[in-house]
């Protein structure tokens, strides 16, 4: 039990914060639950759950809106491209997919422009996802996230 004087600079407003709850879940799983488990399946699932809890705590804002805006900007820039204009304006993910598929097997200016402008944006988004879930891979292999 805490005592007056132990309180942090910013006092909690009557309920535990999400941050504190995630820290508690992670610490308890690591220090109490996992050491008590011997069953390999239960251990594997617990290690993965630790990675999930720590990811949820650290992952930050949902990037979907920013990514959609970036893709929309690229599609706007390609508006005159015949591989894009058929599908855009519309759903940006569907339009990007349709344009890339239409460019497969073609080596003309329209296809090259689609690949040159759309691919880098999508690959950057994929690389962001990869970076944010790296610790999942370690957990999947049975190793506790650092």
């Amino acid at each position, binding site marked *: 039990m805490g005592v007056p004087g132990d309180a942090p600079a910013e006092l909690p407003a009557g309920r535990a914060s999400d941050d504190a709850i995630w820290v508690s879940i992670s610490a308890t799983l690591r220090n109490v639950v996992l050491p008590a488990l011997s*069953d*390999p*399946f239960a251990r*594997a*699932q617990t290690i*993965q*759950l630790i*990675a*999930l809890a720590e990811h949820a705590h650290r992952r930050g804002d949902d990037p979907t809106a920013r990514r959609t805006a970036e893709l929309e900007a690229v599609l706007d820039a390609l508006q005159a491209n015949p591989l894009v204009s058929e599908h855009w304006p519309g*759903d940006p*993910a*569907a339009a*990007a*997919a*349709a344009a*890339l*598929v239409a*460019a*497969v*097997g073609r080596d003309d200016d329209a296809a090259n422009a689609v*690949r040159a402008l*759309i*691919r880098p944006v*999508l*690959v950057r988004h*994929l*690389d962001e*996802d*990869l970076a944010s*879930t*790296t610790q*999942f*891979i370690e*957990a*999947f292999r049975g190793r506790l996230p650092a």
Partner: protein
Amino acid sequence: MNGGLAEWLHTELGMRDPVTIERIGTGHSRAMYVATAADGRRVVVRMEQGGVFGTSGREESRVMRSLHAAGFPVAPILAEEPSGAVTGHPFFVMAFIEGAEPATDERAVDERTAAAFVAELHRLHQLDGRQFGFDLLPGDPGEATPLQIERWRDVYRSASGEPIALLEEAAGWLLHHAPPLAELAVVHGDAGPGNFVHRDGRIVAVTDWEFAHLGDPAEDWAFCLTMRGSRTMPRDAWLRLFSEHAGVSLDDQRWRYWEAFNLFKGACANRTCLRLFESGRNPAPNMAIIGTALHHVFLRRLVEIVHA
């Protein structure tokens, strides 16, 4: 779950009470249990997990029965419960096959065993599987690879809220570059170390048939080389075994194509896990990890090949 399953095994298979049930392995698409009766009789229960990877246990057991009838080493199917009424998930039961003492790493096998596996996989590819009960039957061999690409694209689309443009592009690339196929083969679809039982250098059972289909054997060789077998032994050692025991020799372009195909298949299948996790139908943490991180890893490598 265990009580209902034990009772069902007692009723259906005459297993003597008390039946104890123990989960084995940490597989993802199917939960595997060993059930042991009071007299020591053992069976293996293979249970679906809510539709992970978009594969069907009914097709799997049907194909296994056909393979067994054809003399291929698979565990005999003893019983099936396809409704999900007993445990909440469909399952089938097969004979327990005694293997070598498992190594710490299930994918670590010696060269003699690896060679035996290559020969057995080659034998699988020679079987006529058109009557084996596969859900997808290509009209002619040339349709087989496009049919599989469309199958896996449909699997990911059914699991994803919006198109994944890089995956759609990869499907287009795979369709455009699909190599010709002269003859249909039974393809395991997840071939390599970890998916067979061995003893004294012999393959006593090939396991995990959920991805089996009719198609191009190169898919299996590439899967073993670049995925399941990649940490078992060096690439050159596998290529030598493929050549010596199966007469397989593909050029670099063909290896790359089939590596891309398998990455595509994996990226699509993995996406089903995120859907199951989000819906609550399978809230296990591995579902979130496979559906995100593993999906990303597969897609990233696939993009490297397609964009090269």
